[in-house]
């Protein structure tokens, strides 16, 4: 094996970060996307614009502001220090917070589209069949939005796996703690260690492709049984 233990660590940290971020985003994003779909709040568009920012913002910009906020003198880091905890900059937890913000639109938007595609009718039908609002959400909206959940999970996971600038700013590339695979590849290329860069890149390529393959295969099967 050409990969060093440090490379394997970086790969493991990437997977753990992506998995945890996706999980948190599904938990936060589902109610958020549902609310965005259903709400008639006048200023909803403002919130939607803010939530979409990570799509267009350079990752280093987001990383920079997060670093400031999470550092010992930032509002969040300062609060942590005052409470006797360690500031979050250059920690794995800090990376998770950054990734959740960074990948949020990649999870929320597919969910929002899926909820919108269901339309009002199935929920009205459920209401006339004695289902309470929460019951309608769980027994009708969630199952009908299933393809959207798969898309959201894979996009959120893959996007987190691929982030670079934000992770570098917030995490600081500490091997074994905040060094992720995408940064390790960059380090190898810098040091002209192309074979290790190949192994890590190939691994990420294969993983990303397999995930997308799963989504398209599933969605094809799912849409094939729809009228």
């Amino acid at each position, binding site marked *: 094996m050409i990969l060093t233990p440090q490379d394997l660590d970086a790969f493991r940290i990437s997977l753990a970060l992506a998995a945890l971020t996706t999980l948190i985003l599904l938990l936060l994003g589902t109610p958020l996307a549902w609310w965005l779909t259903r709400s008639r709040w006048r200023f909803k568009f403002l919130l939607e614009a803010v939530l979409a920012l990570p799509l267009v913002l350079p990752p280093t910009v987001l990383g920079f502001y997060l670093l400031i906020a999470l550092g010992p003198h930032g509002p969040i880091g300062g609060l942590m220090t005052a409470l006797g905890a360690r500031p979050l900059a250059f920690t794995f937890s800090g990376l998770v917070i950054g990734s959740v913000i960074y990948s949020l639109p990649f999870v929320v938007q597919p969910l929002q589209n899926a909820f919108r595609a269901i339309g009002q009718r199935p929920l009205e039908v*459920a*209401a006339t069949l004695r289902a309470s*609002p929460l019951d309608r959400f769980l027994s009708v909206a969630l199952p009908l939005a299933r393809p959207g959940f798969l898309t959201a999970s894979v996009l959120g996971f893959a996007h987190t796996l691929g982030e670079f600038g934000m992770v570098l700013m917030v995490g600081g590339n500490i091997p074994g703690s905040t060094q992720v695979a995408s940064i390790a590849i960059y380090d190898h290329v810098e040091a002209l260690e192309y074979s290790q860069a190949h192994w890590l890149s190939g691994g990420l390529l294969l993983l990303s492709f397999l995930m997308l393959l799963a989504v398209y295969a599933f969605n094809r099967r799912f849409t094939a049984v729809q009228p």
Partner: protein
Amino acid sequence: MTIEAAFHIQRGDFSLAVELQIPRRGVSALFGPSGCGKTTLLRAIAGLERDPQGYLRVGEELWQDRQRFRPAHRRPLGYVFQEPSLFGHLDVRRNIEYGFKRLPVNGRRVALDRIVDLLGIAHLLERQPHQLSGGEQQRVAIARALAVSPSMLLLDEPLAALDMASKQEILPYLESLHRELEIPVLYVSHSRDEVARLADWLVLLEAGRVLAAGEVGELFTRLDLALAQRPDAESVIEATVAGRDEAFALSLLDFPGGRFRVAGSRLPPGSRIRLQILARDVSLTLERQSKTSILNIFPAIVDALSDAGKAQTTVRLLVGGLPLLSRITRKSAVDLDLKPGRRIYAQIKSVALLS
């Protein structure tokens, strides 16, 4: 037992402003052209359309007023939408069980097997909704609505989205529903034929207002309403099957004005049947004709007259107290000197059996 409703709903250009009472028995139809507000009214009754000023009382229970609003899922109704709207992620059986499972056990008054039999869908239970025809899907949707043991069934043009064959397939089920289950039905329709077949009570809507409400037989024949002015104006009369004239293969049908003799298939004695009589098939004579091929001749009293164009007159008759329309030429009306109160004979050339 009645339903008392008052709604004022504004949606863009359209406004619905109605106050009405509907009997809570038999089939009541909300009838009118597209865009008259009948679906909005039905949705408001179901609690799907919010009107903060709305008022709705069903029998003894107040469902909404300015202070209170009982949400849709707490109203003991069954609702069938224009499109079947089956849940795509559940098979037919679980579609039907969806509402049933959500009832408290002591609220499950209707047996699922009976509903499944009534709508003839036992062979479809294991299928997925997209494998069914439009007519089958709508039958499943009706079964699903009945499975919640509703105290009232709301149907929003359940046949409108279907082709002619599927319509003919479902109508008998709707009629048997009406006979077999004693659930009051509120039925939205823009089809006069459906209303003539199914409805007992009629609410005529136009541009968000109630034009008139009353018994079907009454409203079809009121000369001040458009129904009686149409070229194909008709009367609807309920009769009871009294027996059969075997020698001539005629069914004998009694109604308060006399006895109809009608050719056609054998009907179970004692059953109620609806007769549809086109106004242009009813001619009038001052004396009873004996030498005529027409079988159905009844004494009648002229109730009212209204000219239908330059050449024709619509005459509203009372036969045994029931209204019957006749369309004759204006000249005949003058020659016979027809005026309210005049005693005459109505000769009915043709009768259609509706159920």
